[in-house]
């Protein structure tokens, strides 16, 4: 049993401690935001935030996560109230198949938290670990610039509020 904090909720997970976070998020916690793309740290589809920084959940064993705060796409906003970066992606219609986009949003969010006003070169360098096959890159970049224009992104790594079964 391992206790992890996801989007402000504590979960007790019955899984081998070596299980990568991605499988726990998707399979145990029924969260869809993080996607399996390669499981090899090559594509970024599985990107989530660990203590506010972008991490490949496909290669992060849950054993290293107790006491650290995990944020997934679901933690940034809801359909009723999308987060700032999500809103920017919708405004730019920055998706084709959309499969890569959750990871893009997470990494963009981490970037904007650390650098609220990144240069174009910084955005491109920061996004380099993320692959998109549909060629949505121009819109993804536009969405990140738009999100940056909207001001500082919230941190979402505040206190752990409660538990959810």
């Amino acid at each position, binding site marked *: 049993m391992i206790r992890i904090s996801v989007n402000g909720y504590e979960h007790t997970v019955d899984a081998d401690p070596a299980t990568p976070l991605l499988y726990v998020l998707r*399979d145990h916690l029924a969260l869809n935001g993080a996607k*399996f793309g390669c499981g090899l740290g090559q594509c970024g589809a599985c990107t989530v935030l660990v203590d506010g920084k972008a991490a490949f959940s496909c290669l992060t064993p849950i054993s290293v996560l107790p006491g650290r705060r995990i944020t997934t796409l679901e933690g940034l906003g809801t359909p009723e109230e999308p987060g700032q970066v999500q809103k920017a992606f919708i405004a730019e219609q920055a998706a084709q198949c959309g*499969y890569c986009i959750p990871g893009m949003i997470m990494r963009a969010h981490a970037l904007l938290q650390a650098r609220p006003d990144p240069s174009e070169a910084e955005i491109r360098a920061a996004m380099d670990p993320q692959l998109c096959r549909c060629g949505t890159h121009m819109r993804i970049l536009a969405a990140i610039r738009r999100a940056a224009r909207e001001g500082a992104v919230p941190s979402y790594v505040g206190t752990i509020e409660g538990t959810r079964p």
Partner: protein
Amino acid sequence: MTACTSQDVSRRNLLKAGGALFLSFSLMRPYDLLAQGVESAAGPVKVPGLPGDLAKEPMLDAWIRIAAEGGITVFTGKAELGQGIKTALIQVAAEQLDVDPSLIRLVTADTHGTPNEGFTAGSHSMQESGTAIMHAAAQVREILIGLAAARLGLPADGLRTGEGAVLAGETRLPYGALVSGHELHVQAQPHSRLKDPSTHRVIGRDLPRVDIPAKLMGAAAYVHDLRLPGMLHARIVRPPSDAARLIALEAGAVERMPGAVRVVRDGLFLAVVAEREFQAVVAGRALAAGARWNNPTTLPPQPEIFAHLEALRADEHVILDRQESAGPGVRTLEAAYRRHYQLHGSIGPSCAVAWLQDGTMTVWTHSQGVYPLRAALAEMLGMPPEQVRCIHTEGAGCYGHNGADDVAADAALVARALPGRPIRVQWMREDEHLWEPYGPAMLTRMRAALDAEGRIVDWAYTVRSNTHLTRPPGAGQLLPARHLAQPFPPPEPKPIPQPEGGGDRNAIPLYALPRARVVHHFVPEMPLRVSALRSLGAYMNVFSIESFLDELAAAANTDPVAFRLKHMEDRRAREVIMTAAERFGWPGDRQREGRGSGFAFARYKNLGAYAAIACEVEVERETGRVRLVRAVAAVDAGQVVSPDGIRNQIEGGILQSASWTLYEQATFAENQITSRDWSTYPILRFASVPERVEVHLVERPGEPFLGTGEAAQGPTAAALANAVAYAVGIRLREVPFTQTRVKAALGV
């Protein structure tokens, strides 16, 4: 736990249709429907002469149904593949029905629920389904007006429609109140009273894509996200190659691993099933480690692949033989071009969920063709087709015939072994890279003569290629079916006939060429498994033709754009060429070191959208790196339903084609594929994304829809090659333009 399917979630913002009025089957969610047992749709009667796919499914209520409280459900046999088709179809229906788009619920491909529209492929969706829905909606609107006229005792031509109701002065008769029985269960007519395009309020306007919010908010949007009660996870262990044979298998320990439920074996088909997904992954690795294979050498050495393809038997198809009078050629040019094998490479590997329950096999799949897949699965499983149901549920980007059908077959085979339990199979990255059918390696040869005025008078072109179509409905087209103890052999590959063509797609130039001969050398034997990759042969043919056109233009000492216009009579083609050139500022900055501009044009399949692309590249001499700096496209897609949707498709096409053209080739060694992941098959990353991409649409209100999904692939490749030639004076004739190839061409 509740079952949840993509259809529900992605329609979150749309009004839900309530109980249907006059349905031959339920409109409820697939899962509920399944729980109640399924009925099969009546087989359609083909009616020629009806617009779009109304010819395949002429009954109006197969396309549009209206519920008592006014909810409107539109059915399409096409699937959302990330191309935005749902939104565009909703727009078409909303326009002709005069309702707000948010009131329309769209049901996509489902063998037990929607018309059979074959495959969602070839940029046909708007032409086929869009046209059918547009006409069906217009005819439904006429029926509704007629019903209102009868009810009110007024002449029909005095009535209007708006906001989901028929209007007569102050009187408002909502659609839902007008239909009570089988009024829409009528056959479509050849002609419809379509809205005057100048009055369009929804068509041609940017409606935010209906599928995007769910995808960006973490709702269950993909088949990967499907969770059914009691669902188990499976992983497949494949042989190292198609020719390999299993010598020994140590599976006992695997079945005792934590969470492991079963090892399924049927011939060379090996799968492991577990309670949890990661348990299945770990058990899959253990099973792979416990399998010993004999893997003979079967592949030609990669450096010799083109010689190998040249040596294979080919069927010759002369697809153009034009002999008009023209002056003598004074100068003849020749060239040959090559293209390596390339991958679809979805970011999300193929996935499916299958459930054998009460004698019915239900498969949630991101296949491009649920009906053909059903036929193939039925044959493989030895089940009657009515007892196999395929429901399209979105996957990651598709780009053609990838692993979707194969993984559906994997899931069905495992589900057959474990009746009653839903089985989810997701391929690992290497499954996708190693086993998806690739876009074929191709060779083209070109010879043309110019007359004294610099005009092309003779044109001879051959394209040599494997098939570009190995899709179902044959069970032998399903990868695991070939590995069963009772294998289904793959059927003899066939070419796709003109005018669409497969390897010879777009092999016939749209230019005015008085004497021209175009031959397709169709090679039946496939060294590597191949099938349809976005735009099929058009990518290579347009790359070759449009590169060669620049070579001819240079020989004629004419500007490449002027040279194209000189040989182009098609008015719409001329307009996109001129628009792209003008918006780009052709020929661009000629001064900058290592920079150059390139231009290319094609009309996809000579039937679809017109696209002209100008681009600027930068070539680094010392490294051989080619960078796309900016691209400007002009597109004529006929009547535009969703301008932003088309722009998105073209932008994506340009970037994807740039990635194919600059980086991508599948690699293989004597007995196996070696492109196993993104480290061995690099694609475009952000560091190489262009500075700017612009797409300009040439509006054609009232003209038929022309498919755009694949229109950018060929022109982008040629524009890049032409820009490199312009920038540094070397002609690249082999795709991809890897740094090694570019450096070799540049010399020291």
